[in-house]
């Protein structure tokens, strides 16, 4: 029968080994050759867009890369689906955007801010998502 000492060794050993593998895989994933996110294409505009995305907690209603809330449209491929003009209108309108009757916060962003967010969405839209991009976006699915 298993003794308490053996049980403890199993716990400590398993933890250390899997954690080391986990760190190794993390380093591997972020090595240059494995990059799927076009990391070097992150411009200042993209970063400003990400800051706006975070400062306003857009993720509290929307998902991007499939992460966030389940209340408002998934935005990974929003530029593909709607075009930049449409998205600019959503972001700049001073009244709640609600063509389908569910309200978004009326941010009334400036043109510059809207452009930054669009740069952010464009960068997001080009990430290789191992096939998920085709599931969330009918447009890119049709190219298949």
């Amino acid at each position, binding site marked *: 029968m298993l003794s308490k000492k053996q049980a403890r060794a199993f716990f400590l050993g398993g933890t250390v080994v*899997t954690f080391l*593998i986990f760190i190794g895989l993390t380093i591997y994933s972020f090595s240059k050759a494995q990059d799927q996110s076009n990391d070097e294409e992150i411009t200042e505009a993209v970063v400003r867009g990400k800051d706006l995305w975070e400062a306003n907690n857009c993720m*509290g209603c929307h998902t991007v890369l499939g992460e966030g*809330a*389940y*209340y408002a449209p998934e935005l990974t491929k929003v530029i593909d689906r709607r075009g930049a003009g449409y998205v600019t209108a959503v972001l700049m309108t001073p009244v709640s955007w609600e063509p389908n009757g569910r309200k978004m916060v009326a941010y009334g962003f400036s043109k510059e801010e809207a452009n930054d967010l669009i740069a952010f969405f464009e960068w997001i839209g080009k990430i290789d998502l191992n096939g998920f991009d085709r599931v969330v976006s009918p447009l890119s699915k049709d190219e298949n």
Partner: protein
Amino acid sequence: MKYKSQKVAYWFFALSMLLFGLQIVYGFIMGFAHAGMDGLHDVIPFNTARAVHTNLLVVWLLSGFMGAAYYIIPEEAQHELVSVKLAYVQLISLAVVGVVAIVGYHFNYWEGRKFLEIPRPLDYLVVVNVLLFLGLILVTLFKGKRRTTTALVLSMGLLFAALLYLPGMLPFDSQVKDSFFRWWVVHLWVEGVWELIMGGILSFLLIKLTGVDREVIEKWLYVIVGLTFLSGVLGTGHHYYYIGVNKIWLIVGGIFSALEPLAFLAMALFAVNMYRKGEKKHPNTLALYWTLGAAIVSFIGAGLLGFAHTLPQTNLYTHGTLVTAMHGHLAFWGAYAMIVLAIISYSLPNLTGRKLYDSSLGRMAFWFSNIGILGMTVAFGVAGVVQVYLERKLKMEFMAVQKEIEIHFIVLIICATLFTTGIIMYMIDFYKHGTPTDEALETTPH
């Protein structure tokens, strides 16, 4: 209660109850918004309600864990808490940080990162608060007469939980990296170190409630937390399938996360077996209900419903849909909410001296809340499956699908009302016990 300083636990539990009540209010706001009634939008938009709902959840659970530690550690270590005064300072500062964060969310003051919305300056306060807590617990443990496995596992869980908060504070320009390290906090908490906390509390309760030999219980505790880390660390990969990192995570995450339910299965079998084995029947049957309930419902919510969407082939379609919300509710309820309610049910009579064991109110609280949340899980689940099918298979527009599933949120609200009735009963029972008193001190341990 055996040590006077254990009384401080009561106030952490009281804070838990208060914040839990508030969490539910914000849940209803979101439930109604999903059902098409968003009358509060201008005052409390959905993203505010969500951040408040999930953060209050985390804070009331943490407050419950801290209360549990303040109750358990003196008893296990056989030593009074080193400073009761500092424990109260820690309680008040926890409440203040929590309330400031929650109020801030109503004024667009946050960091839009799911579950980690607390803004940076407050993060530092959280860190100081948790350091103070850990200091008190660890010094007590260190000075104590004995160091039991139960106490060690519980403290280790609390310590690692604090350490793992740090990767969530790293700043990144890339959304991909941001999300990658967000999971180091969120996943490694709920599917890693929090299970240590749960395991520690569970083992303490089983020792007290069943009278089975400590050595036997603690051996299995090691096996369970061993299984947890063995599967859970690399299981983090189930969040890395589709966020823009290497395909290797499809294999690693798929295999290891599929093993994660084993830890929860082991926990359920362990609890039920110890109960069967136990000679001594402690009169506090309500505590036993919650304890066994936690072990069993966590297996359903985390183990079975987690497994339902963890394979890459399924997650490709369910990722970021209401299916996730279905699993999130039952997993958090079974594993963490129920274990906190279990330790409260066990310790309250000991702290206050009012042995209201097995009241019918307490029993109804147990059944109403559990049946209610099972109903909520089904409502979320049906909504989620329909959403996946219409949106991701039939390629319907997101908003068109939302209109189709509105009705399931009416069902959700009805079940949530049943759930809330149960929780209100629990709170009345809590209130009826009164406040802790030194008169409840036991001279002979049992």
